[in-house]
């Protein structure tokens, strides 16, 4: 087994261990309600970190609009759920119908990934003509544009079908349907996500990304990142591969967004703003650019950290502690001496994080 596939299997193993540990805690009831509530969003953010790492780490482009793709996935899931619940007859509440839940989950995730991929493809065409800082700024703008589009769409459903409008139909006295997306007030969602389903999705995403990285296309993408001119002069179609990485990343972000949405009771466009994009970027940067294992661990730890601090006596300082920890991790992982001390483990990381810069210089 070569080094690369060893790494890949390490990641699968890690996810499975993570799942087994928490599932054991869940079934024995040894888990706090707080942690129980955080499990699925944590998995969703791990998926998003992997997705962004594909763009930032593997393809070497800085994207600051990832929450936009997440929100496309999230609202698609809300929409799919609304349509399914409107067209299906079931006995009792949704929480008792596992079959319907799985149906909603699977269809939502697939449709969300497709929609986000389409958006990623369309946005990728103009955006990927740019490089470096410009690309970062334009992706940021697209993230905000997506948020503002959702802010003025109203989707409702009734016997005659689905209605999409830029005016709020529920303001009308004769309105008899059901709102799916109510502009800036977002969508109300019936919770369907299950932890196991999230883990399966996470594994699937890992399999896709790691196989992509180890494939011909993946090598081409990394070649472009390392030296664009050399790659281009070897006859690699740059645009095609860049667009491919960006679209796949968007699709994964959409799937993660669907998972996140289906686990909440409601989502609003405001949740998926610039700060959410930066949060995902922080996971990627702190976990190690190009390092899938690292970004998963960083996403899991950094997502639950501020909430876990709630349980301690230091509650009023919890955001301060969080910030100090972020800075500390940044400084420590970038300190030459500590890196030298850390030896081989960090040497590998060092190599990876140097790679994207080479592409920039070219």
């Amino acid at each position: 087994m070569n080094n690369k596939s060893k790494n890949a299997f390490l990641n699968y193993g890690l996810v499975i261990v993570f799942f087994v540990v928490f599932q054991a805690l869940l079934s024995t009831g040894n888990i706090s309600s707080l942690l129980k509530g955080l499990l699925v969003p944590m998995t969703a953010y791990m998926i998003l970190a992997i997705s962004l790492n594909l763009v930032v780490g593997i393809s070497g482009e800085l994207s600051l609009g990832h929450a936009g793709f997440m929100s496309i996935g999230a609202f698609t899931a809300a929409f799919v759920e609304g349509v399914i619940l409107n067209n299906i007859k079931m006995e009792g509440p949704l929480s008792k119908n596992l079959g319907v839940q799985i149906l909603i989950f699977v269809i939502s995730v697939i449709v969300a990934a497709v929609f986000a991929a389409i958006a990623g493809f369309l946005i990728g065409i103009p955006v990927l003509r740019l490089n470096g800082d410009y690309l970062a700024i334009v992706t940021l703008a697209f993230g905000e544009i997506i948020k503002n589009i959702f802010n003025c769409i109203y989707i409702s459903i009734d016997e005659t079908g689905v209605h999409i409008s830029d005016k709020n139909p529920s303001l009308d006295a004769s309105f008899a349907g059901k709102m799916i997306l109510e502009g800036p007030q977002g969508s109300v969602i019936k919770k369907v996500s299950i932890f196991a389903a999230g883990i399966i999705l996470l594994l699937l995403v890992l399999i896709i990304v790691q196989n992509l990285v180890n494939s011909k296309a993946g090598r081409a993408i990394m070649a472009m990142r390392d030296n664009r001119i050399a790659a281009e002069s070897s006859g690699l179609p740059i645009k095609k591969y860049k667009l491919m990485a960006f679209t796949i990343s968007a699709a994964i972000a959409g799937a993660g967004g669907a998972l996140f949405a289906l686990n909440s009771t409601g989502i609003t466009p405001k949740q998926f703003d610039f700060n959410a994009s930066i949060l995902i970027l922080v996971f990627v940067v702190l976990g190690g650019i190009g390092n899938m294992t690292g970004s998963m661990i960083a996403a899991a730890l950094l997502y639950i950290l501020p909430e876990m601090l709630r349980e301690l006596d230091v509650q009023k300082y919890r955001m301060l502690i969080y910030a100090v920890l972020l800075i500390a991790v940044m400084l420590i992982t970038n300190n030459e001496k500590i890196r030298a001390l850390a030896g081989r483990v960090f040497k590998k990381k060092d190599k990876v994080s140097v790679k994207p810069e080479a592409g920039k210089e070219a």
Partner: protein
Amino acid sequence: MKKRVLGMLLAGVMAVSAFTACGNTESGSTAAANPDAGETEEAAAETEEVTETEEGEEAEAPETSEGGALTGTLNVGCIGPMTGGAAIYGNAVQNGAKIAVDEINALGSDFQMTLNVQDDEHDAQKSVNCYNTLKDSDTQVIVGTVTTAPCIAVGEEAYNDRMFMLTPSASSTDVTADKDNVFQLCFADPNQGSASAQYIYDNQLATKVAVIYNNADAYSSGIYQTFKAKADELGLDIVSETTFTDDTANDFSVQVGQAKDAGADLIFLPIYYTPASLILGQAYDMGYTPKFFGVDGMDGILTLEGFDTSKAEGVILLTPFSADAEDAATQSFVGKYNDQFGETPSQFAADGYDCPYAIYKALKFYADKNGGLDVTGMSYDEICEILISVFTDPDFSVDGITGQGMVWDANGEVNKAPKAVVITNGVYVGM
């Protein structure tokens, strides 16, 4: 090549500073808004158990019937924004609830309450986390959440778990819809919207009305909808309707300008006080002086830090509570609040004060009827069923400082009359 690393670092640092900035400025402004911040902060510290018995006067506890054996300790959890944009509400509710819990504990009976307050920063996801934290620490009843959107999210969880919730101030009908365990102490949005329209119409306050509302906020849009429906019915002329979202709540010159151009002589503001203060300021600067009419979210504007209260002169707002009421219960509450927190309590503080009393009286009502009740160690779902049965009992009513004879319907909505107050010389005066 250093540039990319630098860029990454900067992005990270930016995010970090955004977090720090939030944490710091917010707690800073909370502290500054409350001269007695030390005490408030202390109360916010998560597991503070309020069992001191310093306030020893039973006299002002409004109407407690003697007899009945209600015993034990009830763990009450409170969720609300203690930091962030809506912090004034959360802190007011917390302070009010704290006074009420102290009073109940000082009644000398064998019944005690503990209060555990959690900060949700007016964020639905965080509010659910708060709720889960409270559930882990053996909370039996929730007072909260303070704001509407988080309350809808938490209500969903509480409904599945069978935890009783009494919200002091989340006023949307979505809060109580389809959930038999969630009750409101404030009146619901439809009542506020239609009552406002009715009030404006009855008192001939205006001929042309402009509305500025937040269409990203369930609370604001909910009131607007019912206001508009009622206004159309009454024939009130709405000449300008403009919206904003939380992202665009920094500049209102367009909205105010449009109202001015349309010749509106009254602007209806079904919004929270922070954007309202900007609207008042910008209208003032434009030399445009219509009447302003707000709802309960406007309450708190006088205690907003850095706001020139003279700009709020003449603002009319709908509230169930005014601190200048003459009755003994209100006077005693206002006095205590002033002593402990150094400010005049808002309607939110009064709502927060009434909530523990409503729960206490409901349990007492049950104990009287069923020959005693010991709440120590009872599970939250048992208490939930008891409280639901009492709150929907037509014989059960509560006299609080936000209303006399409050009764609840099966939906969980309270029935009480709104009052209008006008701001005169920096204080609320009943109209």
